């Protein structure tokens, strides 16, 4: 072929020039010659797939089957159930690997998944609900909120579907939504409630012949669907469970309308009863340094606050029916009117199913299934009651329930009242197993008879009305309830927290509505038996405590509560319990103290007696609770002191030790002293007829021992202590000082300031000082070892209390002068050590010495007289010099020093004589300079001070 074309090529080239425009001859029967530019098509191609690369940069991550989110979502519309199911599984996989996709495609995801709630295939629905659960786990409620109408529409669709399977699966979807978005569901309850009703019943057609006993509300009847996989009883149970949870969500979403009022009537004593506004808690110190700003008035108080309890007259009601949800009392009532007959029917059916041989004695024994249906019925009744939007509506609703259904409830619920489980015979076990397998999907299968009974109590007890309204016929059904409650509590049955809470709520309601003394005593005694058990958990214990204390706070207007012996016994036992509890459980102690405080402030005699007898133990400085508990409880305990009718000497001694021992803060010690002051007859603040709790003598001795800060025993041991702990006496420091630790010193100093303030305000200062100096003379002058804090405190007190008209007696003066001199010597040594942390101590000591010296001129003279330079050893001379120059430099003392000029001159002469150093030392130079300045100053003002001498 190549050769032929080669030979032809030459010819063709030649021809080409003229052949260009030659006509091609086409003839019939001959094949058409190929054109020169014809494409040779006899090759084959092969594709190269780089799918991963391509996908990655176009449409995001994929599953292991390389399907992106768009593919998966579009597959959800596929006609084949398997494809849909695998797409759902794929979506779940994809989303769990890439959580960010959920955010991006939330709207499409939800709408597509929701559309599958009503899919015909069970597996698809199952997968859809799983995917929904997964999405719900990672998307918060506020982001789902815009799509929620869609979701709930599909949910309603599924719930009302004709196919039983879809209805059943709708329950699972509802579970998911209840778990994650209860608030959103509860926001629009109207349609869902109707759906619930339709799940278990059907609307009566109005055309049918009505039986005469059927009243107006009963247009619904329980339905039975034989095609279901489960028995109708179990089906109803599943529906009821969801309905219960749904109503619970609605109740929880209700904004709290009435804070405290509903607490008191509901008996929710577990709650703390705090207000709705969080108050601003400030402290004066922070405030005065402007660390915190106060902004109390929003919009400058021009408008009433939203919390105001004054209400304008409500606007005209928009005609709200069931369709408008549960926002009005009428709506709740009409919903209840539809639901309650159904519930009753279910109850009857459950109890009848259960006992085919129903013949008296076994009637109260139930199978677990029946039990759980009944339990759910009761739970929903309870929730219905709580649905009332406002407190006053609730009362109305209770009354309505009573009017409508009391007879029915009595007949059905109370007939076999304390219910129990029936022991299933052995041979039935196999069957049971099968059944339990079958119904494993239904949670909450096992309901204890106790829970059932307690719930029944609670439902029934709210139907009881206040005695004295003319109807006393409640007794017949209240008595079994009461005896059940009493027996349960008194027999020390193990109760869970929730059950106990419900039981106490029942007791609360009975006590408040029955208003009878015997009932109250009876029930409270049972609670008390329970309370006295040893091994209760903290939560239970505090629940019981708050039950009692709330009950006690209710006593106003309820004489049967106020006079209850059990309550009194409980109150009287509180202080003992507090003392016994010690520091083991501060939280419980705090609760106890709160209860005690409430009763004490009301002046409850029993409690105060108890408190009085155990006061010494509570306020023991070593192991009393007042030093063991945390600061807040300490403060409350200190405040309790105010209410003590009498303070014994022993108690005061304890208190004074508490103040000085440093185990309570200085501020608290100060407020303790102030409270004792207020309760003495000397405080001057007395409104009304309150007797002083303590005698003046005791009060003053309390102040004196707080002032000294050390007990007699401690001082005695100090006297005998070795030299290692105290500073040895020397001619310069005639007393041997015991250096108290810095912390104790400051604490003691604060206490001293407070005691001084109390002493100052007692009245006559001269008498007060007399007492003080007698005390010093009697107890302290013989001491050889004195703690420095005590010495400084005494000087401070003397200086504050004394005015010029009083002359202290000699032994006291001598003791004080010794204190003063020793302190000054200590000050010098402290200055040499000069750690800056003793600054406060140094200032305090110096201040005390100087103020004492300047208020009592004779003290100064005595100090100067006791300075015998000849007795000092050499290294003490500079110390003395420093003391003197410090005194000389202090201007307020200058005049007094000049009055003792001769004495001073003598000392200085001695000093110069005895310091035999060749070179004049610095301290001496300083001293002489100070002295000369003082003398020079003194001579100019001498005339003015002539009168000063007369004082000596």
């Amino acid at each position, binding site marked *: 072929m190549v050769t032929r074309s080669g030979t032809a090529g030459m010819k063709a080239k030649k021809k080409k020039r003229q052949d260009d425009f030659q006509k091609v001859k086409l003839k019939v029967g001959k094949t058409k010659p190929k054109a020169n530019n014809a494409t040779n098509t006899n090759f084959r191609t092969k594709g190269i797939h780089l799918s991963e690369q391509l996908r990655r940069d176009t449409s995001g991550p994929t599953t292991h089957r390389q399907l992106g989110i768009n593919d998966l979502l579009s597959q959800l519309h596929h006609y084949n159930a398997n494809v849909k199911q695998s797409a759902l599984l794929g979506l779940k996989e994809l989303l769990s690997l890439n959580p960010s996709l959920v955010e991006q495609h939330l709207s499409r995801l939800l709408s597509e998944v929701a559309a599958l709630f009503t899919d015909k295939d069970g597996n698809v629905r199952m997968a859809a609900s799983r995917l929904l659960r997964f999405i719900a786990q990672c998307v918060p409620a506020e982001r789902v909120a815009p799509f929620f109408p869609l979701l709930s529409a599909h949910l309603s669709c599924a719930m009302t579907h004709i196919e039983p399977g879809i209805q059943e699966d709708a329950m699972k979807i509802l579970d998911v939504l209840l778990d994650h978005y209860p608030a959103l569901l509860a926001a629009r309850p109207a349609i869902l409630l109707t759906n619930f009703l339709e799940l278990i019943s059907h609307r009566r057609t109005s055309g049918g012949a009505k039986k005469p006993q059927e009243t107006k509300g009963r247009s619904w009847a329980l339905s039975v669907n034989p095609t279901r996989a489960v028995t109708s009883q179990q089906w109803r149970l599943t529906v009821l469970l969801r309905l219960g949870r749904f109503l619970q969500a609605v109740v929880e979403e209700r904004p709290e309308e009435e804070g405290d009022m509903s607490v008191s009537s509901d008996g929710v004593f577990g709650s703390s009863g705090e*207000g*709705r*506004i969080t*108050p*601003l*808690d*400030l*402290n*004066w*110190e922070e*405030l*005065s*340094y*402007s660390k915190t*700003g*106060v*902004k*109390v*008035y929003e919009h400058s*108080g021009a408008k*009433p*606050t939203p*919390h*105001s*309890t*004054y209400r304008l007259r409500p606007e005209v009601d928009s005609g709200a029916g069931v369709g408008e949800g549960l926002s009005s009392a009428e709506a709740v009532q009409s919903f209840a009117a539809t639901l309650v007959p159904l519930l009753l029917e279910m109850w009857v059916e459950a109890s009848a199913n259960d006992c085919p041989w129903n013949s008296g004695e076994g009637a109260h024994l139930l199978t677990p299934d029946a039990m759980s249906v009944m339990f759910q019925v009761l739970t929903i009744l309870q929730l219905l009651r709580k649905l009332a939007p406002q407190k006053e509506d609730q009362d109305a609703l209770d009354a309505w329930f009573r009017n409508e259904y009391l007879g029915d409830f009595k007949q059905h619920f109370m007939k076999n009242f304390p219910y129990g489980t029936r022991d299933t015979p052995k041979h039935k076990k196999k069957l049971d197993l099968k059944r339990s397998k079958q119904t494993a999907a239904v949670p909450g299968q096992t309901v204890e008879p106790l829970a059932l009974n307690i719930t029944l109590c609670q439902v029934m007890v709210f139907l009881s009305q206040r005695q004295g309204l003319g109807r006393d016929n409640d007794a017949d059904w209240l008595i079994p309830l009461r005896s059940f409650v009493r027996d349960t509590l008194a027999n020390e049955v193990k109760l869970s927290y929730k059950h106990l809470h419900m039981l106490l709520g029942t007791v609360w309601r009975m006590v408040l509505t029955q208003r009878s003394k015997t009932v109250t005593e009876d029930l409270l005694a049972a609670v008390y038996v329970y309370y006295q058990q040893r091994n209760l958990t903290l939560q239970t214990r505090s629940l019981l405590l708050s039950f009692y204390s709330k009950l006690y706070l209710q006593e*106003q*207007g309820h004489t049967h509560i106020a006079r209850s012996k059990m309550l009194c016994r409980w109150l009287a036992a509180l202080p003992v319990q507090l003392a016994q509890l010690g520091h083991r459980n501060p939280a419980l102690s705090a609760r106890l103290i709160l209860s005690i*405080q409430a009763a004490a*402030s*009301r*002046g409850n005699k029993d409690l105060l007696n108890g408190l009085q007898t155990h006061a010494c133990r509570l306020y023991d400085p070593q192991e009393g609770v007042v030093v063991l508990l945390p600061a807040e409880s300490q403060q*409350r305990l200190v*405040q309790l002191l*105010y209410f003590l009718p009498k303070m014994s000497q022993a108690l005061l001694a304890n208190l004074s030790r508490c103040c000085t021992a440093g185990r309570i803060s200085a*501020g608290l010690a*100060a*407020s303790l002293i*102030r*409270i004792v002051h*207020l309760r003495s007859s000397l405080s*001057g*603040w007395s*409104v*009304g*007829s*309150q007797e002083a709790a303590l005698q003046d003598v005791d009060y003053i001795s309390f102040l004196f021992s707080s002032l000294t800060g050390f007990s007699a025993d401690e001082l005695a041991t100090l006297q005998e202590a070795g030299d290692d702990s105290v500073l040895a006496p020397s001619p310069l420091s005639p007393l041997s000082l015991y250096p108290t630790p810095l912390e104790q010193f400051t604490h003691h100093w604060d206490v001293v300031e407070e005691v001084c*303030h109390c002493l*100052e*305000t007692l009245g006559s200062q001269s008498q007060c000082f007399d007492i003080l100096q007698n005390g010093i003379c009697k107890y302290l002058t013989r001491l050889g070892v004195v703690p420095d804090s005590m010495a400084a405190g005494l000087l401070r007190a003397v200086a504050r209390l004394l005015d010029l008209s009083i002359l202290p007696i000699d032994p006291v003066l001598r003791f004080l002068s010794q204190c003063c001199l020793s302190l000054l010597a200590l000050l010098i040594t402290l200055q040499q050590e000069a750690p800056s942390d003793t600054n406060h101590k140094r200032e305090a000591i110096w201040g005390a010495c100087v103020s004492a010296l300047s208020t009592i001129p004779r003290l100064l003279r005595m100090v100067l007289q006791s300075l015998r330079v000849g007795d000092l050893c050499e290294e003490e001379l500079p110390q003395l010099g420093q003391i003197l120059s410090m005194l000389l430099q202090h201007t307020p003392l200058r005049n007094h020093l000049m009055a003792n000029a001769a004495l001073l001159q003598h000392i200085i002469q001695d000093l110069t004589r005895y310091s035999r150093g060749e070179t004049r030392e610095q301290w001496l130079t300083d001293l002489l300079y100070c002295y000369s300045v003082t003398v020079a100053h003194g001579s100019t003002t001498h005339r003015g001070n002539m009168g000063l001498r007369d004082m000596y």
Partner: protein
Amino acid sequence: MAAPMEVIVSSDSGSQLWNCAVSELHSGSSLLSYRGGNTACRGLALLGSDYILGAQLGKNFINVWELQRKDQLQQKIVCPGVVTCLTAAPNGLYLAAGIAEAVYLWEVSSGNLLAVLSRHYQDLTCLRFTDDSSHFVSGGKDNLALVWSLASVVQLDLNHTPEPRHVLSRHSLPITDLHCGLMGPQARVATASLDQTVKLWELSSGELLLSVLFDVGIMSVTLDPCEYFLFCGGSDGNIFQVSLCSQSLSRDKAFQSDNDGNQVFKGHRNLVTCLSVSMDGTLLLSGSHDETVRLWDVQSKQSIRCISHKGAVTNAVITPAPANMFLPDSRPAAALPRFSRHLHTSEGEGGESGGVCVRPGLFTQDEDETHLQKAERLYSLMNAVTDKAVFGDGENTKVRVAELEEEVQTLKKINKDLYDFSSQLLTKPT
């Protein structure tokens, strides 16, 4: 018209010469003093502009003076027990006293004891009305302050025991003083207590707004009229000022080298038992157990004046001077009736009709018809007129019209006379 004059009314526990003294606010000159006995703490009350009342210290009666007759006791109201606190409604219609643990509420016009409220468990310490007299607050030694609505307390149904509107129960020691702000039911209430706190509450909701903890027990509290500042008198003699709307916290901080102490009024040496702020909020009055009353300038926190007393100061108030105080010839608009000691029962007052007999000025009216009866009479009269007008003949109507016109003329004349007479009375200088 000139600004109303403000006066200081103060009393103490020890003075022999007089019970309570009135002096001018700005000059300090002593104006009046009322004699007889001594007044207990928080036991002084001005009743309208006619009377001044003081609860006798340690005794079970209340002294009453007419404002213009300073020397003579008008009467003594004998009470069932020692009066611990006393207050009068600002509109002068009600009087409330704390006796032991009960609040006694009297109607001033009739002297009836309207209610005895024993909700407190211990002695009362203070009582205050709101400025519109619609509510009152009581504080006691049981740590509670109770807010009462006057309307719910004053009711005829005796079987129904009145309940307080709110129970303010966050204090842990006895309440020593309380102050009601302005704005009626929207007011704020400040309570002081021995537990070293001052708390500010909202009256309308009973919620706690603010709690300030001090180093000492607080014996007295007041707010200035704008409620910018809270003044708290401590048991150590200091008066603390808390600013309630601190705005420019950081701006002026640099200039104040010593922030501490510039919010404290220092001067008293003992419990500060009473505080009061002048109408313009610039002056603060304080009375203390150190037997002095001090007047402070709020802005600079200096003591302007110190008035010594003979005993612990029990009351010190700045109040606008009532007109009658300085007119010796004036007489009270209404005489004070006898105050009854026992609860007024409706049987006593011929209970034929369930209606209330409202008589604001007892002595200006003498007929005993109730409003219902009057209304009935008026109604029958009107009916009679219309009956006649509609069904009567023409001539009769003319006569009737003439009669009525004549009556209108006479009425107009009477009215004019009245007007002339009163304008003459008013314009004539006294």
